[in-house]
């Protein structure tokens, strides 16, 4: 929803900066004067009035109602000047004047209709922004009580008595608090990706990043064979290493939950791109549902994922100008080397 709105910046529905608004008014004025000039050169053709409609509707969509009304007025002036004042031989002045008046009224109606659509789009956008801010705020506020639950269970676990049943319950409590904590972190991450938060870039070696992340997951899943193939030469990439590491960690976590015995992580580089592939020997995804795995809150299995890992990975890759896809065997992150 957000991308559909933001890509329509120049079609209305987005607040433009002052300079952008002035630019739009300038473009519309020039267009109206040009139509007026053509109007004068071709003589009174009723069908030409339709071309005033384009700049008037556009400027009222991107700048607002006042600009639209002004543009309609300017169109009327241009029409009068070219069809009535500067055409002394035209015999039916009254009809020409009447035509221009009719055109201005039609344009004003269009301006009003456009304004209604524009107001609705702006309201939707503001609501969406408030929703995102609320999400970030709520996620943030949840962190302290979650820390309280988590630490309480941990402190109890350190106690002297260790009744196996109690321990199992405490472990369950820790695990659930942990899951909620991960979900909260993911929600905040998503909110930040949506707000296009700036990520500082620096040059890092992809091989080392892979090595670091695989090392981390190897500790929690020692029963799986973790193969790394990153070639012999370092792969330098200008990126935000924390974010790319997180994107990879999400894919590794995914692989860890689905693999039978082994996971292979490859990194390759061409002149344009760096590709990081994660392949596990699990059942794999049917290619027909693979794309929906990248949607938010979609969990295609009962393996305890938050449903935000893959969308976050995709968001991070896209913020770097790359993408993530599923080939049928492996998840592949593609990052351009710029």
């Amino acid at each position, binding site marked *: 929803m957000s991308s559909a709105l933001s890509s329509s910046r120049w079609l209305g529905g987005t607040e433009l900066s002052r300079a952008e608004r002035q630019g739009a008014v300038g473009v519309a004025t020039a267009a109206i004067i040009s139509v007026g000039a053509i109007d004068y050169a071709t003589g009174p053709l009723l069908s030409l009035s339709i071309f005033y409609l384009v700049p008037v509707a556009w400027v009222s969509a991107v700048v607002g109602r006042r600009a639209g009304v002004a543009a309609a007025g300017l169109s009327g002036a241009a029409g009068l000047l070219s069809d009535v004042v500067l055409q002394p031989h035209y015999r039916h002045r009254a009809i020409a004047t009447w035509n221009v008046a009719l055109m201005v009224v039609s344009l004003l109606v269009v301006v009003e209709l456009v304004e209604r659509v524009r107001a609705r789009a702006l309201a939707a956008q503001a609501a969406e922004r408030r929703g995102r801010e609320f999400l970030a705020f709520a996620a943030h506020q949840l962190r302290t009580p979650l*820390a309280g*639950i988590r630490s309480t269970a*941990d402190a109890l676990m*350190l106690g002297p008595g*260790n009744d196996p049943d109690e*321990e199992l319950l405490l*472990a369950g409590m820790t695990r659930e608090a942990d899951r909620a904590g991960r979900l909260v972190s993911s929600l*905040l991450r998503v909110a930040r990706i949506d707000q296009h938060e700036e990520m500082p870039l620096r040059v890092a070696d992809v091989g080392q990043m892979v090595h670091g992340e695989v090392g981390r997951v190897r*500790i929690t899943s020692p029963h799986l064979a973790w193969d790394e193939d990153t070639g012999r030469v370092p792969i330098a990439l200008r990126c935000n290493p924390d974010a790319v590491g997180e994107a990879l960690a999400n894919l590794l976590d995914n692989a860890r939950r689905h693999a039978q015995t082994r996971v292979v992580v490859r990194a390759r580089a061409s002149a344009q791109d760096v590709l990081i592939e994660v392949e596990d020997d699990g059942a794999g995804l049917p290619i027909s549902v693979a794309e929906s795995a990248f949607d938010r809150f979609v969990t295609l299995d009962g393996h305890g994922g938050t449903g935000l890992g893959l969308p976050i990975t995709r968001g991070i890759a896209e913020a770097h100008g790359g993408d993530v896809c599923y080939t049928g065997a492996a998840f592949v992150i593609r990052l351009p080397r710029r």
Partner: protein
Amino acid sequence: MSTAVRPRIVLVEDDASLATAMRLGLERSGYDVAATPDGSAFGALVDEFRPDLALLDVSLPTGPNGFELARDFRGRTDAPLLFVTASDTLADRLAGFEVGADDYIVKPFALAELLARVSAILRRAGRLISPLIEVGDLVIDENRRSVVRDGKSIPLTPTEFGMLVTLARSPGRVFSKGQLLSQLWGFSDYDPNLVEVHMSALRRKVETDGPRLIHTERGRGYVLRP
């Protein structure tokens, strides 16, 4: 911990349950803790308690915030300080380091992570000097992270070392798999097999050249004794 002198930690955290849990967790792991819900009497507390480490919540609803307390703390002692924060943005982290924080930890955290950071910072600052731990012919030096048995040095992974130290700090105490998991991994992935895998690797290394030291108590857990 077998040390007579327990390192002292001052804790400022406004959330009462979290503060209690952190205080008990730290106390059960061998620290003395003075906790306060706000920073109103922080200076006096620091002067009186003379902490080896400060744990500060960044956002406090009343009184000075964590950053202001950090500046105050810096003016009174050179003991290290660690921020506890609910925000993980880069800007907040940098702001923390600017006022002299040695590290930060993001809520919600596992007690295992808090303990690991606390002991790492104290060790770095020279405020945690653990004596050598000896169990039979096994000698563990926490400061140098080395393990020697019968004069021979044994190379261990960080996980194996952590597991051995946990057992060795309370010789004779039985640790369940759950307790080891929460101490070493913080339960981020609860899988009792994890303990077994690392424990068998540790045993292979430690017990190749000598009699059994790590004993399995069926249904209860593991214990280290000569």
